[in-house]
């Protein structure tokens, strides 16, 4: 059974379409790049998958259910911005995730926080922007979820942090789960992807495996992206 299924998914903001009759499926055990230029509809798609928006038309099925309580228990979502409550200490944040998610692996999270020298008593608001983003990522990746939806996890961070983030994702996700990474920084994520979905102006442009792109088109995903989205 696919972990994410979109059928003619459409979302309008007023009269402007953000997504236009998008259909695709994501199978378990795949790392999928949701790739497209800024404003192509990537964030809208992930918000729809998390029930933060309601479709204008079509349907979206996440882990066999419409987005809601049932799917939230199985999906681990990293929003594009730092959304963890900043008044909390790291320990309180661990309590928070542990209370709400049965699949939260507290030991794994504590180990990653120790690795970054983050003290349990340290408050989120006392941390730098980069450290907050890492803490949020640690919380998200410490869940043994069935689907990880990561919105721009490497956007706006330095190359060293990008490496840390990608290694955290690859080193900690549940191998039976799928990971969807939304980004426009293709070169950095290409090495970890199994499949790619190209999206532009709210429409699906391409869904393919990375191997197929390399074998059939003889180019990297980054090169294909530049060719498809050439201005």
């Amino acid at each position: 059974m696919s972990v994410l299924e979109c059928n003619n998914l459409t979302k309008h903001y007023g009269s402007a379409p953000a997504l236009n009759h998008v259909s695709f499926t994501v199978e378990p055990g795949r790392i999928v790049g949701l790739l497209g230029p800024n404003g192509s509809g990537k964030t809208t798609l992930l918000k729809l998958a998390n029930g933060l928006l309601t479709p204008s038309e079509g349907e979206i099925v996440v882990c066999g259910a419409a987005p809601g309580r049932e799917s939230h228990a199985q999906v681990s979502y990293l929003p594009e911005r730092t959304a963890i409550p900043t008044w909390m200490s790291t320990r309180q944040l661990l309590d928070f995730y542990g209370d709400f998610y049965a699949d939260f692996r507290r030991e794994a999270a504590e180990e990653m926080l120790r690795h970054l020298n983050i003290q349990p008593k340290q408050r989120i608001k006392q941390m730098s922007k980069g450290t907050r983003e890492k803490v949020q990522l640690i919380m998200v990746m410490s869940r043994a979820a069935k689907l990880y939806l990561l919105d721009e996890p490497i956007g706006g961070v330095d190359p060293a942090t990008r490496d840390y983030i990608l290694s955290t994702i690859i080193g900690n996700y549940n191998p039976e789960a799928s990971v969807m990474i939304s980004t426009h920084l293709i070169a950095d994520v290409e090495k970890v992807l199994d499949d790619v979905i190209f999206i532009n102006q709210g429409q699906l442009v391409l869904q393919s495996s990375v191997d197929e792109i390399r074998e059939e088109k003889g180019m990297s995903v980054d090169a294909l992206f530049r060719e498809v989205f050439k201005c």
Partner: protein
Amino acid sequence: MLIKLMKHEFRATGRVMGPLYLVLLVTAIGANLSTRGLLETNSSFLNMLGGLLVVAFVFAIMGVCLMSLVLMVQRFYKNLLGDEGYVMFTLPASVHQQVWSKLIVSAVWFAATLLAVCAAGTIMVYEVGFMKAFFHGLGEVFRQLTAYYALNGTALVLEFLLLCFVTCCAMCLQFYAAMAVGHSFPNHKGLMSVVFFFVFQFAVQLMGSLLIVFLDESPFHRWLLQLTDWQLSGMAATHLLMIVLIFGVVLYGAIFYVVTTFFLKRHLNLE
């Protein structure tokens, strides 16, 4: 899940309200010392200090009351409609549980604020003789109420307290509904929330006025006036009025609850 949401809501709000209650109680002790001695000395410094302690107590009361209201609005706005909404609305909890957790915790803080202000007032005026006289007087008021108006004073007070409680909850829900509707707009979310609060306020007053006019001219009213066999005693009529008021306020709150949950489910539009 509701219990867990409330636990973290109490944790988030308790760190603000707890210290404020402490400040209130400390200033109440200061005001007590002031009224019992400092203001009656010949030293102008001690007189001034006594005056400042009383002023601090008044400000502490105002601060606690105001903060319980501000916190109710701020928690809903920041925790559900701000950036934290991305975390809160992706928890395995329903929108109803989210709204109930905010509502219950806010109502508990309103009740706790009332108790804290009463306790602080008691501390401020504390003197064994005065307290005895105060409680004796309070008991006498209830006895007089029951004897003179044939009313059950205790039941009336309980009904009044329940009415205050449901009114607080309904007021919270009116704020929540205004914010939920205001934040469904793509721009000027804060401004639209304020606009919708006043729109709702106007709508409630208009509906209330229309209802009174309608009932006054309705066949139901004429039918009631024709009833001669069925006379309500003063006590029964007062209790009936309180119960009607309580149900009316519950209905008013329920409408805003439906508006809030509908907009959070169907028109959530986080930045």
